[in-house]
């Protein structure tokens, strides 16, 4: 590279950026001084650009709505009504992007971080946060190693793979038994990062133990441009069940391609299917979505707070997806911990999270109790798309409809 490549010299550039940063910080500082109680900065980290941007954006909506609600109802009471000031970060759909944001948030002095969304981002971001004893609440990331690395700062409010896969398999067996065991063979289509591959591996060991034969497991990248080849394979092998485990865009493409190629297995049963229990998918492609079953995160349909949030989100012309209510719940969980810690000391917040029994969330979970950072009450539910709506079919205590299986022939 020639020396005069940049019209501004490197030193000048550094000087001016430093000056700019100082000015911004001074501005922020004076804003702090004006307020009565110093606001509490919280990092809100999501992949709002890149391949996962839709989910990231939805997560951000959930987290920021929770913050708005807290701030508009008197802020953090134990801190003299201090407001929460979100510091929004974009993980750019990569673990490195997540790390960079954690570094920035730490430098800006956040009290804790909520988010990450993808397992791979959660894994690396929480590890980086651990270096600074910075409390990190995983919003979605389901890979079990997130909470088995012995990181004291990392908490996951939602369920991990282990419990999700177990629930999904138990319910699948129940479903199949109730219908007279029509399904014997299975094909798995999964995305090839930590989430999809981890899940596929789990299913590959556990499905045969429960009497299902796996014909093939097909990994694909995210983003994928085309699913015709995958669907061809499904068509060639004609499995009774197709189990997709991928993110939203790919899930929709797969389901649409299956509809297009007239591939109709006895059931499409997803485990954490990116779109399988998404109102957006059901609204936009009712034909492709009909009868799809999913074992996934879901809100408590009997909780008035969950329904109020649903209304609020839909009024904003957004879809009420799991990213929204999970982030919403995580942010409330964190606020509760900060209240009990009565300050922004990171160690105290971590301790408060570790003994949290928080009940003010909107999820269909059992009592909140953290063991090694994992909420023991967390559990997924099974849903099915029936007549342009998403119904809960398992567990019985939350069910709003009876499952339709096998899929009726069109």
């Amino acid at each position, binding site marked *: 590279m020639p020396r005069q490549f940049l019209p501004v010299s490197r030193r000048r550039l550094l000087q001016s950026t430093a000056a700019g940063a100082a000015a911004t910080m001074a501005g922020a500082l004076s804003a702090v001084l004006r307020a009565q109680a110093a606001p509490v900065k919280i990092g809100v980290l999501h992949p709002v650009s890149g391949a996962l*941007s839709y989910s990231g954006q939805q997560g951000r909506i959930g987290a920021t709505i929770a913050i708005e609600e807290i701030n508009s109802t008197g802020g953090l009471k134990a801190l003299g009504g201090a407001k929460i000031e979100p510091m929004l970060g974009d993980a750019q759909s990569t673990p490195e992007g997540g790390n960079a944001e954690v570094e920035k948030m730490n430098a800006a002095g956040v009290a804790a971080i909520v988010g990450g969304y993808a397992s791979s981002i959660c894994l690396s971001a929480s590890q980086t946060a651990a270096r600074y004893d910075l409390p990190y609440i995983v919003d979605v990331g389901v890979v079990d190693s997130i909470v088995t690395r012995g990181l004291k700062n990392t908490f996951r409010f939602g369920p991990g793979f282990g419990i999700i896969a177990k629930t999904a398999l138990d319910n699948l067996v129940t479903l199949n038994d109730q219908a007279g065991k029509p399904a014997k063979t299975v094909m798995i289509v999964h995305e090839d990062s930590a989430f999809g591959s981890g899940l596929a591996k789990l299913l590959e060991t556990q499905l045969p133990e429960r009497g299902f034969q796996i014909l093939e497991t097909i990994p694909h990248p995210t983003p994928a441009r085309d699913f*015709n*080849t*995958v669907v061809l394979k499904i068509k*060639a*092998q004609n499995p009774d069940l197709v189990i997709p485990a991928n993110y*939203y865009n790919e899930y929709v493409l797969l389901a649409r391609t299956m509809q*297009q*190629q007239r591939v109709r297995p006895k059931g499409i049963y997803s485990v954490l299917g990116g779109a399988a229990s998404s109102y957006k998918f059901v609204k*936009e492609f009712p034909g492709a979505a009909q009868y799809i079953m999913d074992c996934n995160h879901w809100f408590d349909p009997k909780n008035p707070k969950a329904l109020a949030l649903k209304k609020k989100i839909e009024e904003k012309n957004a879809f009420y997806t799991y990213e929204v209510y999970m982030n919403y719940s995580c942010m409330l969980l964190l606020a509760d911990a900060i209240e009990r810690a009565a300050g922004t000391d990171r160690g105290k917040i971590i301790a408060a999270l570790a003994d949290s029994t928080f009940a003010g969330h909107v999820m269909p979970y059992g009592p909140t109790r953290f063991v090694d950072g994992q909420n023991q009450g967390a559990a997924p539910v099974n849903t099915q798309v029936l007549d342009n709506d998403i119904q809960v079919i398992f567990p019985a205590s939350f069910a709003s409809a009876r499952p339709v299986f096998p899929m009726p022939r069109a």
Partner: protein
Amino acid sequence: MLSPAILLAAVLNGLMTGAVYALVALGLTLIYGVLHIINFAHGALLTAAMFAAFFAHQLLGLDPYAAAVFLAPLFFLIGYGLQRFIIGPAAHGEDRNILLVTLGLAVIIENALLYAFRADTRTVDLPYAFDVVEVGATFLAVPRLVAFIVVFAVALGLWLIMRWTDTGKAIRAVAKEKRGAELVGIEVAHVYALTFGLGTACVAIAACLLIPSYYVNPHAGNAFVLIAFTIVVLGGMGSVAGALIGGLFVGVVESLSGYFLGESLGQISIFVMFILVLLFRPRGLFGERA
């Protein structure tokens, strides 16, 4: 499990997908052939065109295929303007600068789209989106079949323009010998902009062909651009026929290797091919010697 029917289906599917790749690559190769730069804004322009097609359907009720008739000229003008008034002047005659300017444009366009439309994934639901034509044991989706035919028509049109019109001759002259073309009175800046416009128009048509079966979000175009680069290298930089045949070839290779090696691993074969071509036939299959 390897039946001829499946193999045929995989090949047909590859051809369909490859046709759209070819169209994206066609625009890229045209710009490369004449301006001798890689247009990094190609993906962003594709995304922008997909948004345009989406909103033409959503707001004006225009079918994407009908929209192509308006969007192609519109994006021709946008491309022309970009090259004539932004890329050209900002480059100060240095190829290296053009590269950076297009990269900058890509960042600006993508983020402007992200700002304006957020990261939502949008899809168009068309009555014929799920229509299929039966070919043997396989179903060909109507939108993909239409895309296949349109791509050939566009490539033919482009070839005719390049071969028989004065504009085409001027473009070829500039591509071959810029100084010489200037000496015989061809306005190089105008030809550059024309070429950029044509390349961008290709992208607009590709967007209209993609939108019935694909989705759009501010990053949707990028998925196609890396492939298009590979095709351009494979077919020969600047060769229209090379882009077309390269596109179809890559589509089939992707489909078959996806079938035999799996979708994740299948992607490798495209890039292995890319490296092999660079090693053994750096000018590409149809490229002319520099």
